[in-house]
């Protein structure tokens, strides 16, 4: 029984994942042509690579069709209900950093926090009889953030393309989106609310709790983690976090250690009733 490792199938994320494993002495190899969606590890037996698009990784992990997978924290927390009951983070991989933020027009000089946003939502409802419209690719993270931030009277406009466009064409009033820097927000005359960073994300190696962990898959995992050992995460620690709370705490402590700014917005996980 082989251990299935899901990795991004294209682009920077694939290259960086390959590099990250290579730096740790693990050589990922794509079978045949560059278009083929299978691969192996040349210097470790028992691993099958499965190439997936980033958004497929959470589902495959939670169904247990792959044992390990590389995906951003944002994709996992958005794509999976109760993520820390189904997966646990083995390594924060240190690339593909981004933040999921609540951004409003810079013209809204009176809106600086979620508290203000809620007041504007109330005015909208009263004055225009309409809900404040939030364009986002992250409906679950958005609802969670609005719930904890106390914002009511909004509706979500799920958007496939660039969410900023939704503001310019009038189909949304604000956005919740993933940004790597302030540049694109600045260029679109948007600003992040003071408590508007709702998740700090980076590429992470996840272990599925639902995969078939046969004895041979466990042996392969052990061989793999021995090579991946980093000072911040011993093998013992990597497997000690057996409860969802532990796993969530592990992600937060690791991501906070890597980020110099403020608290992690994801700390308060609040399921919507």
């Amino acid at each position, binding site marked *: 029984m082989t251990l299935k490792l899901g990795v991004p199938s294209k682009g920077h994320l694939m290259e960086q994942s390959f590099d990250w494993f290579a730096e740790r002495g693990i050589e990922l190899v794509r079978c045949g042509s560059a278009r083929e969606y299978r691969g192996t590890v040349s210097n470790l037996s028992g691993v099958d690579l499965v190439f997936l698009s980033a958004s497929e990784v959470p589902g495959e992990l939670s169904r247990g069709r792959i044992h390990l997978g590389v995906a951003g924290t944002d994709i996992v927390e958005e794509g999976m209900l109760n993520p820390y009951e189904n997966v646990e983070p083995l390594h924060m991989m240190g690339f593909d950093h981004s933040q999921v933020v609540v951004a409003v027009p810079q013209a809204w000089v009176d809106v600086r926090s979620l508290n203000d946003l809620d007041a504007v939502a109330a005015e909208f409802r009263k004055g225009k009889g309409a809900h404040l419209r939030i364009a986002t690719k992250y409906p679950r993270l958005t609802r969670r953030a609005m719930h904890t931030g106390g914002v009511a009277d909004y*509706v979500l406009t799920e958007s496939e393309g660039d969410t900023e466009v939704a503001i310019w064409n009038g189909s949304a009033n604000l956005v919740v989106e993933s940004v790597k820097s302030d540049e694109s927000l600045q260029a679109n005359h948007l600003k992040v609310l003071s408590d508007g960073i709702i998740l700090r994300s980076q590429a992470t190696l996840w272990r599925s709790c639902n995969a078939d962990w046969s004895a041979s898959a466990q042996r392969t*995992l052990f061989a793999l983690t021995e090579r991946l050992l980093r000072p911040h995460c011993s093998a013992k620690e990597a497997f000690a976090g057996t409860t969802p709370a532990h796993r969530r705490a592990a992600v937060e402590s690791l991501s906070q250690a890597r980020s110099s700014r403020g608290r992690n917005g994801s700390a308060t996980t609040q399921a919507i009733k």
Partner: protein
Amino acid sequence: MPKVSRRAPKGDARASDEQNPSDTETLMRTETLLSRFLAAGAQHADPAILQPAATLLNIYGEGIAAQSYVTTDPLTGPQILRPDFTVPVAQSHIASGEKAARYAYSGKVFRQQDRTLDSAREYVQVGYEVFGTSASIADDAEVCARISSVIEHLPLTLVIGDVGILRSAITSLSTTNHRKTALLRHIWRPARFQQLLDQFAGTADLPAFIGDLTRSSSIPLIGGRSPSEIEARALAVQEDARCGPIPAVEVRHLEELLRIRGPVSTCLLHLRELAKRWPNITQNINRMNERVDALRAHGIDANAITFDANFELSSLEYYDGFVFGFFAEHPSIQNPVAIGGRYDALLERIHQGTKTHAVGAAVHINRILQLEARQ
């Protein structure tokens, strides 16, 4: 060797907690209850399962929106599987142009459950709604008693409350209308309500509001708010920052009020005690008193009624007056067997300027059958 847990994939689990009685049993009981409501003079309401999503979600708000199943029709656009009966029934009543009417209905409602697979996603309700031209105490009592009459063979506790008491208390706080409106708007979200109350009482910091509030002309106006709206709110915020806190004594009274729970007669005494210091809530307390008398006249044992000032506030966003629920004493059935209340403000939202008032409730058939099975 690392210890790795093995667990069956979650997707394979079955909804199990509400061990569903057979369909025939559910159907038969549904018919029986519906016919009793119809025999009491109600018209039969039978709204479609598929409802236009945009209209309904706008009325329900985000709480129910997040729990609803939304699907798309190629011609009519987004549709929603009805998450309850109240709004569709109210819509058809308003469309009918009638002033007063009674309706009974039965059927499935659909709610997503994102916490556990152990809860039903679709369940059968039988309900009774009374529409009238005033917020009549007689109607409140009639609906509550009608529901009680079909479940009186079960060991249930009747819990009642009145959002109106809390509303009148908030309205009489010594603070700006702006702050009162904000508190009233969040009655149904206890965490947010407390956060605002702490801010307005000065026990939590108001979010700092310093710096320039004038908009540079080089910043394009996007986002759907006009310059005058932005400026008006910027001014209001600065004004609010200068306004003094809600007096501590009033906050204590409000918090005391929210904690009142127990036998209704004791609670009414407690409320009257509060009203001595806080006269504005007297009218609503009197109404509660009359309501209890009316329930007694319907044959309900008033000594067994529990009053809860905070009753189900977090889950009943559209109720704004009398609220009630019947709860099983059996610990395995925590959700109410029947629940309802008055929702005049919701009608206002459905149809601006309407003078219609309504009170209604729904019974959960599966919970009745489960409870009977356990007896």
